[in-house]
């Protein structure tokens, strides 16, 4: 198969395992491309991409922008803080105005869950979800799974623990969908207060003990505590959280097994992960970032491939 089954990337939920395999196989080739002396291919030279960020981001935005530029697409950037959104324009109006300037593809991050799906139903463009509230962050899940595949060979039968603020995390939800579709087992671990109520209905194991989770897992994905999304206090203090759910070198040494530590960033050093672990040889955090560009190139390339060129007079 050489074509995606979807026309937009709204969430991992909408992809089938063959789509994910195709994205990985294409990303393998793009990873080679971005390690060349000249890291650019001309595939998307006739495509214009708008990056719409209604929420702050460093890594994801840079990663998308680099991916677009390495595919030779034209790029326009937009952030909500400096735009007419502040003047009361609706999302559909904003996007339709941008599309009227002949933009082919929209990459959007938005604080509201479902924003990407909503947009795909209301405007005529290819939509890539770069994170919608606490809902999904599909490219992050793809690059996480791609990094695990690179490290461990395949996902099938592997055990992945997702640790931390599951309640506010779009990374957690997309990761659960993605890993399960690829045949991996998933455990979520964190304080009861940061665990969604019906998490077990997703078919994951639940633990509240970090040591137990790490003993079980081949890979641990440490999530950041999302203070900006927390409307109330979910645990007594950061220090107490770090003691119970922070991964440290001593803890990893006491396990006496091979384990890979991941983090989607940005890292709160000393909270969910200690500095020596983040910079140590268990960590593949920077490989994740590198793979992020290759994965996003693959996603943009495969989605653009679905839109046939139009030649009208």
């Amino acid at each position, binding site marked *: 198969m*050489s*074509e995606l089954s979807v026309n937009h990337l709204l969430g991992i939920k909408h992809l089938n395992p063959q789509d994910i395999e195709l994205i990985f196989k294409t990303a393998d080739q793009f990873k*080679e491309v971005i390690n060349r*002396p000249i890291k650019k*291919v001309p595939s998307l030279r006739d495509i214009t991409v708008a990056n719409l960020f209604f929420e702050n981001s460093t890594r994801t935005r840079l990663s998308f922008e680099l991916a677009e530029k390495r*595919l030779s697409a034209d790029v326009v950037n937009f952030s909500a803080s400096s735009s007419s959104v502040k003047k009361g324009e609706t999302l559909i109006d904003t996007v339709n105005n941008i599309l009227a300037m002949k933009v082919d593809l929209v990459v959007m991050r938005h604080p509201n869950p479902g924003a990407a799906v909503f947009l795909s139903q209301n405007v005529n463009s290819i939509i890539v979800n770069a994170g919608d509230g606490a809902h999904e962050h599909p490219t992050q899940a793809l690059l996480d799974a791609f990094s695990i595949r690179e490290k461990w060979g395949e996902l099938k039968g592997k055990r992945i623990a997702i640790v931390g603020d599951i309640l506010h995390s779009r990374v957690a939800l997309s990761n659960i969908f993605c890993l399960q579709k690829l045949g991996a087992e998933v455990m979520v671990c964190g304080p009861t207060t940061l665990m969604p109520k019906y998490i077990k209905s997703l078919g994951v194991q639940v633990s509240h003990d970090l040591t137990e989770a790490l003993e079980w897992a081949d890979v641990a994905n440490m999530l950041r505590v999302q203070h900006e999304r927390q409307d109330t206090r979910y645990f007594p203090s950061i220090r107490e959280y770090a003691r119970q759910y922070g991964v440290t070198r001593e803890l990893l040494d006491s396990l006496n097994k091979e384990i890979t530590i991941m983090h989607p960033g940005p890292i709160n050093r000393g909270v969910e992960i200690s500095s020596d672990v983040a910079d140590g040889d268990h960590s593949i955090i920077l490989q994740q970032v590198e793979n992020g560009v290759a994965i996003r190139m693959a996603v943009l390339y495969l989605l653009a*491939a679905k839109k046939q060129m139009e030649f009208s007079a």
Partner: protein
Amino acid sequence: MTKKELLSEQALHIILNRLACELVENHRDFSDTVLIGLQPRGGFVLNRLRALLGEQGFERVDTGLLDITFYRDDFRRRENPLSANQTRIDVLLENKRVVFIDDVLYTGRSVRAALDAIHSFGRPKEIELLVLIDRRFSRELPIQPDYTGQRVDAISSERVSVEWQDEAEKDSVYLLNTTHERA
């Protein structure tokens, strides 16, 4: 679909031997030369030529594989998108003599894409083209081979297919008559 043999195993081997000799004639000790197989099918020809060169004592010849999927000029214009293949070029091509190797030269568009792609790896001193089969009179771009195995005249509803023992029963070249669009 009809299938007609154009080249037998024996004829194909004679041609490959001649091509290897022509390469030796022009490239002497291969010290400056890099042989690049164009994916997906050029790699088979490259492997055979490398083995033949090895038999003649040229064991250390730099080689690589180049995939041109991301450089194609029919992206977003064809019904079925093509999957990307591996690119493996571990040598610097700056000032090298590069020989592109492919199985069938048809419209010349793959070679055009390869000329684009190769510059990501440096500026070669020169680039030559070696093809096993040259489908004459079907070129859409001003591209001609420097080394030709066999010239074939075929119409556009026909397809020239080169099969290798690695994947089929034996080495041979066939002419397929299909109703499909050209590949």
